[in-house]
């Protein structure tokens, strides 16, 4: 078993579906932050057989996890402070997502007006359907920005 050191302050994202950790890395824009990140792929899991884990050492107010729900509800977000888990965050579907996912409808105005934000709104909470604010195209799976 691979060991990664203990965090003093930051987050542990546990129970990520195996293979999706890099999607989340980019979704949370961790590539743009100057912080220590450990990406653990295909860790053994009793619950999931295989899972990914992300450990992020940063100020706990730095990241917005709302968009994580878009990818996977079952991800566990453990908030770490002074080396201890101080909170387990529940993931809630955000009402609106801005510049996280892109509208791929070639007929949408966002395809030609480059400076426009890509905004999706939660059209159906039960079915977890997001639609583009401008053309109402259904969001069909995260493919990165």
């Amino acid at each position, binding site marked *: 078993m691979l060991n990664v050191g203990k965090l003093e302050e930051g987050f542990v994202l546990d129970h990520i579906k195996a293979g999706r950790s890099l999607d989340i890395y980019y979704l949370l824009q961790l590539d743009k932050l100057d912080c220590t990140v450990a990406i653990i792929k295909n860790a053994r899991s009793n619950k999931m057989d295989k899972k990914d884990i992300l450990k992020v050492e940063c100020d706990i107010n730095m990241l917005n996890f709302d968009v994580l729900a878009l990818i996977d509800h079952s991800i566990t977000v453990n908030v770490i402070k002074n080396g201890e888990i101080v909170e387990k965050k529940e993931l809630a579907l955000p009402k609106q997502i801005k510049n996280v996912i892109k509208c791929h*409808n070639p007929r949408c*105005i966002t395809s030609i007006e480059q400076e426009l934000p890509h905004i999706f709104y939660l059209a159906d909470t039960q*079915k977890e359907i997001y639609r583009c604010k*401008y053309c109402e195209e259904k969001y069909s799976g995260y493919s990165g920005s």
Partner: protein
Amino acid sequence: MRHLMSPLDFTTEELDKLFDLANDIEKNPEHFAHACDGKILATCFYEPSTRTRLSFESAMTRLGGRVIGFADAASSSASKGESVSDTIRIISCYADICAMRHPKEGAPMVASEKSTIPVINAGDGGHQHPTQTLTDLLTIRSLKGRLGNFTIGLCGDLKFGRTVHSLINALVRYDNIRFVFISPEELKVPDYITDMLKDRKIPYEEVIRLEQVMPELDMLYMTRVQKERFFNEEDYVRLKDFYILNASKMALAKQDMLVLHPLPRVNEISVEVDDDPRAVYFKQAQYGVYVRMALILTLLEKER
């Protein structure tokens, strides 16, 4: 300040008020001949649509206002690469209200976010065409006397036909409406429409042949298969003549069924149907002017 992006921007009560005003204009046009004196409508049409543009221009002119604008993107600053956001900021300095048609879906909404004058969506790609919907609703309400308690058939291009999508979205707010979708497999209504109908438990049926459902319809909404919505000529040629309404199909219909069409028609309604009193598509174009007059007055807050 209000805009019109979708037929759903108005509540059914607000629509009733709008339609009452349109009927008032129909009966007493002289009372409204100077209602918009000194006001300017900008018609910003990034794709050609003579009919809708002229309907707006006729509406504003009949209210005593004036009209400026462009009729296609080539004669606008869009050809120089100007964004919709920038264009509307400029148009806001020149006019009091704007009607915008754009081939890209959501363009009028982008305009409304930056505009200081009311913006009317005059059609955005395959997405929405709310003033056509208001026209359709006014036609139905005026000629049937009600909005609700009927079976409506929608025939033709139900996939890309924005008039159809807007009309369905507007009609689901009324009681006891049943939809019959008549289209080839390739041009079926999009999933977001059928998902919405299922969620709201609104009855609908999808069929391939027009004849089989004619006797049960209270209204038939015909649409054109639009060449510009296809990516290749071959598909267009194969599908365009699929559904043609003629006298023999009309013979199967109820005596008080109404035939509507957003126009222009190509050959999906044969000319022999034109003289049938149930064919109301030319009256519909007249209602289009009345409802646009009522809309301009309402958005300019000059309705009373």
